[in-house]
């Protein structure tokens, strides 16, 4: 839609208004980007340089490589390990969330029983529960049930992936539910008549159709899991074997108080993967975010 349609005004006024709007937008845009610029500039300085002048450009950009290698070779914080663990946790969590939530949502949509309604309502209602109510009882419960099942749920990747499935599935089921409702049932019926089993009907007919909404679910959950701090902190501990990026960043800030060269470089590395991904998949991400938020 076109908001600045100024049919009644002479051309010059329209142009002037557009120029003013452009200037205002550019100024705001710069204001939004300044924090990132400052991180990059100061990641390429030594601690002394930052204290001396935080605004000036760095004397040598080579310092950026030095800082990055200082981060990755740090003896107290295993940043590379945390980076890999973060990738594993995010990828596995997204896989189980997409697979199991879509399966569950499909059954809930296609079976109109009291049970399916009750279950769906329970998932929706649970979305209002703040994490703060659950976090401490959850840790205790995970310890107890892990002991009982002889399976470590605390401090392990499978344990935290399981937790992300629990926390992520209500919203994901809700989103899949809304999408599957609009897929014509005839498609599945004809498959059944052709002798396709229920399970195969889902995987070979329904699941491929979900592709656009899967992108939405991946993005919403991906941004959350990659940046999440409290759940990993409570389930993995601040110095456990398995770590995540946000925990490693706080470990850095805690170990090197006010050493901004190291802290800023570690934040730069933490946000780089997400920003690079965003540059490539920007169109899908924006579309996915809008669809996820409106539902």
């Amino acid at each position, binding site marked *: 839609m076109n908001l600045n349609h100024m*049919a009644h005004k002479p051309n010059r006024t329209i142009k002037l208004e557009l120029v003013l709007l452009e200037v205002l937008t550019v100024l705001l845009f710069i204001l939004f980007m300044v924090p*990132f610029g400052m991180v990059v500039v100061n990641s390429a300085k030594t601690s002394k340089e930052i204290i001396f002048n935080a605004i000036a450009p760095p004397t040598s950009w080579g310092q950026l490589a030095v800082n990055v290698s200082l981060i990755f070779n740090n003896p107290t914080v295993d940043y590379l390990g945390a980076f890999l663990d973060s990738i594993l946790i995010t990828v596995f969590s997204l896989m189980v969330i997409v697979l199991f939530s879509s399966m569950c949502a499909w059954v809930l949509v296609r079976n109109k029983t009291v049970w399916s309604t009750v279950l769906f309502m329970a998932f929706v209602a*649970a979305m209002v529960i703040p994490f703060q109510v659950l976090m401490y*009882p959850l840790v205790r419960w995970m310890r107890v049930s892990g002991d009982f099942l002889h399976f470590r749920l605390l401090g392990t990747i499978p344990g935290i992936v399981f937790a992300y499935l629990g926390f992520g599935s209500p919203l994901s089921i809700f989103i899949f539910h809304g999408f599957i409702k609009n897929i014509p049932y005839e498609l599945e019926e004809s498959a059944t008549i052709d002798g396709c089993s229920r399970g195969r009907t889902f995987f070979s007919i329904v699941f491929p159709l979900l592709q656009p909404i899967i992108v939405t679910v991946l993005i919403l959950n991906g941004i959350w899991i990659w940046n999440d701090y409290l759940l990993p902190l409570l389930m993995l501990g601040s110095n456990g074997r398995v770590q995540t990026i946000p925990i490693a960043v706080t470990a850095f800030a805690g170990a090197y108080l006010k050493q901004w060269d190291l802290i800023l470089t570690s934040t730069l590395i*933490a*946000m780089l993967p997400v920003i690079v991904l965003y540059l490539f998949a920007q169109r899908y991400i924006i579309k996915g975010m809008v669809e996820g*938020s409106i539902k």
Partner: protein
Amino acid sequence: MKQSRLINVLFVVPCVFAFIMIIIIPFFFGLYYSMTDWNGVNNDVNFIGFKNFKTLLSSPEFLFSFLITVAYTLINIVLVNIVSFGLSLMVTSKLRRRNFYRAGFFVPYLIGGIVLGYIWQFLLNNILVDLGNMLSIEVLKTSFLSLPHTVIWTMAVVNTWQYAGYIMLIYVASIQSIPASLMEAANVDGANYITRVFRILIPMMANAFTISIFLTLTTSFKQFDMNLTLTNGGPATRFLDVPVKASQLLAMNIFSTATANRMAEAQAKAVVLFIALLVVSLIQVSVNKKKEVEM
């Protein structure tokens, strides 16, 4: 038939099992623990009724935390929504690079609260202070994070930087769903741009405002990550003759209570957070829905 029922159960089980283990059971334990003397160290937990809640109501430190959380939430609702509505007008205008700007304004949302807290701590404590010294601007010489009466506002500004681009996308989607002919007709009738925005656009976007205000309300009320790394609760101030932390929002207050091994008390605070959030968001949505109908 029997086989398809088995498939139904198999498809639902993973999500339902995770949901029960991660959300339902910890939730009820959470409600129970808030009425016990749980301290996280001792294994036996005794029921003590509503004693924890009575302690909270007479604790100035908790009341202060509650009040500043409410203040912080209100500031955010106004600030985030005004800024993001303004941005949405800009990126739906005739500007040639509007899609580029839209993509840029969204970037801060990708950065997690932990990381952006450190970045803004650096910006506010170093860059702005350096700038103040360089240009001899008195107000900038002391960090906004170090003064009790500016710290909440500063946090709201940082939060706006993070969320405005996300909320903007919701407004953009809403603007794009309004038929262009409506605005053009008003334009032909001689209504100027401001009139058209207030008389046509905003009433037509009532649903987007309901969603956006709800999202800003719930995320601000549960704010934790950025609070932890930006201010860590500081600076110190006084409330009802008791020393308190000027920027310790509710979620962080819960966290620090639990860190001090007062688990049951932290749990009671979390339950209060839950109930307050539930009541306030129900009121907000019903008031907004009523407004939507009136418009």
